[in-house]
């Protein structure tokens, strides 16, 4: 009994360390882990699902705001970080009463810190970052330098990036109208797009874009941290909340192992109680 409870306390502490919320003070503030359902933004177990339900969202924060020349609106859209613990196919999906939705998924170096120094980047709308930022450009492009990891910014004397920044723009999806300009020299298409330049973090990106539902599936998503930016894509629709879900399909062998370990655990407990 005593050892059980000691172990339990230790593992509680370990678990607490793992799920602690980060109240970030970056240029943008990613949603703390504690705001996810169950306070959990870790795909801890193979084949698990995590979610952030009923989250506030703005109708044009991903794209579609003419004042910003359709750039993403960094303070008005919402950022979600999550940590993946198993290299499996992972699907990020968003559902909403808003029909026109958009999101981008990036790989980051550690948990995204929100950008920590102003890069002075200026969009065609005359707005600087992160009020306006480039939602579809590659890491290091105009409109992303503020959020790009410093390891990638060594050649730029004016911008050193940020300590826990993006390493690669993996993909984006937009169920609203395509926009030929996004204020930063890129465009935003309609549908799902694989924007990754390497296979370091995934082996392919596909997705679906329908009214009120968007998703991206990242094949064999590597262990590590990711950040998602989500918002509406239509200036004329009404704003509604969104539900974010990140799910993995477990490999069959892993399921069997997990199940048997759990059974073993329970039977041990019963034997001890009877003693």
């Amino acid at each position, binding site marked *: 009994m005593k050892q059980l409870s000691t172990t339990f306390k230790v593992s509680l502490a370990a678990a607490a360390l793992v799920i602690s919320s980060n109240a970030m003070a970056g240029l943008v503030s990613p949603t703390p882990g504690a705001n996810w359902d169950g306070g959990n933004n870790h795909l801890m177990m193979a084949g698990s699902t995590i979610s952030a339900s009923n989250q506030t969202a703005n109708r044009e924060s991903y794209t579609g705001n003419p004042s910003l020349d359709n750039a993403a609106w960094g303070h008005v859209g919402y950022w979600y970080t999550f940590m993946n613990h198993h290299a499996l196919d992972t699907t990020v999906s968003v559902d909403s009463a808003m029909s026109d939705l958009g999101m981008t998924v990036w790989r980051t170096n550690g948990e995204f810190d929100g950008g920590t120094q102003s890069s002075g980047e200026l969009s065609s709308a*005359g707005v600087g970052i992160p009020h306006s930022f480039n939602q579809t450009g590659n890491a290091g492009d105009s409109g992303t330098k503020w959020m790009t990891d410093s390891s990638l910014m060594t050649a730029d004397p004016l911008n050193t990036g940020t300590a826990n920044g993006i390493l690669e723009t993996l993909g984006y999806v937009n169920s609203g109208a395509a926009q030929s300009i996004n204020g930063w020299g890129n465009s935003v298409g309609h549908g799902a797009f694989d924007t990754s330049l390497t296979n370091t973090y995934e082996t392919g990106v596909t997705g679906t874009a329908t009214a009120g539902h968007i998703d991206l599936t990242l094949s064999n998503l590597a262990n590590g941290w990711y950040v998602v930016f989500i918002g509406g894509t239509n200036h004329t629709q009404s704003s509604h909340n969104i539900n974010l879900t990140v799910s993995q399909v477990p490999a069959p062998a892993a399921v069997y192992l997990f199940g048997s370990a759990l059974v073993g655990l329970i039977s041990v407990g019963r034997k001890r109680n009877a003693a």
Partner: protein
Amino acid sequence: MFVHSKFNFLPFSLLALFLLQVNSAVEAAAPGPIPINLSTLPVPPTPGLSNGSDPIVIDLQKAIILGKALFWDTNVGSDGMACASCHFHAGADVRVKNQISPGGKSTPPQAQLFDNSTSGDLINANHILKKSDFPFYQLQQPLDPNSPTIHNSDDVVSSAGSFGGQFKGIDLYGSNVDDCLRNADPVFHVGSTGTRRVQPRNTPTVINAVFNYRNFWDGRANNIFNGSSPWGDRDTNAGIWVKINGRRVIKKSLHLINSSLASQALAPPLNSTEMSCAGRVFPALGRKLLQKTPLQQQKVDFQDSVLGSLSNSSAGDIQPGLNTTYGALIRAAFNRKYWSYRRRGPFGSAPNQLPYTQMEANFSMFFGLAIQLYESTLISDQSRFDLSARDETGMPTQLTASEMNGLEQFRLNQCALCHIGPNFTATSIAANAAIAKTHPEAFGDASSSISTSSNVVNRILTARSVAMFDSGFASTGVTETTSDIGVGGTDPFGNPLSFSLQYIQHLTGNNTAVVDADVFNVRSCDFQEAFAVNVTFPFPITKFFTAADDLIPQPQNTIDCYLQVNSAFLPSPSTALAELNKPNSLKLTTAVNGAFKIPSLRNIELTGPYMHNGGLASLEQVIEFYARGGNFNPPAKQSVKVFPLALLTSDTAAAQNRADLIAFLKTLTDERVKYEKAPFDHPEIKIPHGHVGDEFSVVNGNPIAAASDLAEDEFITINAVGASGRSTPLKAFDSLLAP
């Protein structure tokens, strides 16, 4: 047993993971400005007013006494109006009868008709406002901007003032009613009987107005006081008379900065809707008042914090008037070179009367400066928000949880970006600039900050482009631009009221179009959004100037620029002129038409109805207005600051967030204002409140002009209050409305 614990470590931690439920919702920290204490805000100084080697005011206390007496004295008006008749309730007006103007600023003028009420009844002069009359723009679902419009009125709730008329002369027999040619007004009447005219814009509060760089909703009360008119340097005939010696007096121009309260004070006493018959001049008003006892018919509390020692009252015996004269107060307060010339002659005269004296000729200056000095004492820096202790980040620690969430909502929903600084408004330009370095947290943080400089022109995103706008003047889409053009209007000399319009002329080299010298000090590197960036962009730019255009460096230095130094540039004059002449240019757009002075939010609980048209009766309606993103989308609207707010509409906590935001706004009420304690105490005043009867019939024969078809007045009497205040608190406007 050891084997068990080791073996089970990993599964136990996984089990713990399932069991551990962290349910507290931690909000992401709000970015941007933090509201701070009003006592940090300095009153912008006016050199030469009461300091220096030859000050105009030599006894500040006497000037304040003079100002308070003049402010409350109903003898100032041609027919019984005082400044306080419209500025009596937390510095504003909560009357409910005969308070509607039929869109007095609408264009074309034929549009100036009374609209029907929400139930389709006729609203006319002498109407008593009801809750159901508000708001003046209604949607079926107040929180959904896409829901149908069910009511849209361009009427304005403001203040009933004068019957108007044509000024003939002050009454030489001592009546406080001026001798005028009066008739029933063509717009304000019931049947064929005239009613008091109503102003076309809602009356703002005078409390904390000393911090505003300009005053009036359209900014026409100039920051520079010229001594004889509200127009600052625009009025080339303005000036005051200065005695040189016993035989010589000359007219000189006056140029006092940070004196828009004095400029403002000169407008209502000559305005035929507010206080006066048309055509009255200040020397005539001076002659009238110099004959009278101050506050002649108005009781003064013996403990009035400014007037008490001069009152005729004592404990238990309250009497009207002061035991001094306006002349004595002027002589005590002002430098003698402005009133001691003994001869008459050069100052003009009224028909069939003695020529004016120097004191009468300069009465506009005494009036304006005395009112300004009195209003400068009306600073409400002891609200619960101000008095609360602060933690190390500057956040208050003694507000309730609801009020703290309200403060968070105030910041998260971007209210703090325009209602910024200790006075909660960007229109306090010089005052905010004075503390931008010592209190940077009030103006933003690394992630979101507002450029706070002395610039009177700034840049903002609109739906169409990046536009110049007058600092502190914003369009939020309350009404259509045709209902009121705001700071986009012109002065009587044909000049634009807007600094931005002058600035654009200045950029093209047309400096004769600049009538406010502040325009020359505008520094482009302090704009919020860049104007001319000396950089080549890898993508096309249509909304601002770049290195692809012909640029010149800004003329000023680049010390402490808000933007990077590559933005310290301007288009060359020929480039600017060519751009201005292009149809559909995006680089020189302005956001001034339909823009209005951003009000302070202090004491907002008490100063309804709200907005320039008084069309929102309660704070609940105001929050709904912002939650849905405003009523209209005119071209000048600051569309990236005013847009539908999910946290206040669709979020699961939206109703709570709205209620908490209102709770926070109520912490900005100073108890001294609520209970009229010093310095907000005052003499008695009788204020016209509608006319006997209703909007269908009134009683003819007002003694003001018995033969002139004017309706009899009804009055409310506000009792005199001494320094210790009143026993019952002032009420919010919406609580005074019938259902």
